[in-house]
């Protein structure tokens, strides 16, 4: 099952590879990303970030959903990554076997219009489509929270969105 689905615009990087894989006690990392599934260079740099002994699968979002729903995935502790909230929402809506969603780092470096972006936290600065997806995600029954590194508290997405309205 998916132990954690993390939204991170850098996908796998130092914090994710070294700190989170240990925290989550996972050997199986799945990057669900349409660009990465066809971009060899990106695949190789992702592969480099994977620590010794951990395994990586890079799939487009649709194929990743098939992997998550495969009976063989049930016994695994899978750490899944997307780089947008919209992709995370698609996966949540198609994969019932999931423990939690961590919206960690997103939107700061994407190329959407800065004037339209909303700052949800220091690490979540998103365009209207992403914000809409975050709202939809926060209404799901599974825990959806924001936690950049394990020593940070888990802040529920609903709290972040409520604070935004204040």
């Amino acid at each position: 099952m998916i132990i954690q689905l993390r939204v991170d615009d850098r996908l796998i990087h130092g914090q994710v590879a070294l700190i989170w894989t240990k925290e989550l006690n996972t050997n199986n990392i799945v990057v669900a990303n349409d660009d990465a599934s066809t971009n060899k260079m990106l695949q190789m740099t992702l592969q480099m970030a994977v620590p010794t002994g951990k395994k990586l699968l890079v799939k487009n979002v649709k194929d990743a959903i098939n992997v998550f729903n495969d009976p063989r995935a049930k016994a695994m502790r899978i750490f899944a990554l997307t780089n947008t909230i919209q992709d995370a929402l698609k996966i949540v809506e198609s994969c019932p076997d999931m423990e939690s969603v961590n919206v960690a780092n997103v939107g700061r470096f994407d190329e959407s219009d800065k004037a339209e972006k909303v700052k949800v936290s220091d690490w979540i600065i998103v365009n209207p489509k992403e914000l809409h997806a975050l709202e939809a995600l926060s209404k799901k029954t599974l825990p959806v929270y924001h936690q950049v590194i394990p020593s940070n508290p888990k802040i529920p997405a609903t709290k972040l969105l409520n604070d935004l309205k204040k």
Partner: protein
Amino acid sequence: MRKYLLASHGKLASGAFDSLKLFLGNVENVDFLEAYIDNSDFSSKIYDFMNTLSDNDQGIIFTDIYGGSVNQKVTAIMSEYEKNIYIIAGFNLPVLLEIMTSTGNLSQEEIEKIAENSKLKVINKSSLKMMENIDENNDFF
């Protein structure tokens, strides 16, 4: 409890300490030693560290250069004590993170394995080509 000392020529140790905070948030039980930034004798800092170690503690000292003068001094002082202490020479950020996120008393074997896994890697275009082939074989983990 495990306690750490980062020791370097100049500010590498305090720089590494600063980088660790990005990954770990609050970094506890870590002290650092910057040798030769002034004329003071840095031995006292090493003795201070040794004296904070109780019988149940494990001390790990990271030094920047195996055989360097900082490493020599640390090694000499360590040998005066009968304590659970390891020196890891030639530290980098991966080895710091691996050690600091491991729990419990680490055995010599475990520490050596972490050091091995954290070794330097060289990348050029032909090594990238080899990685391309590895990924092809990975169907479902």
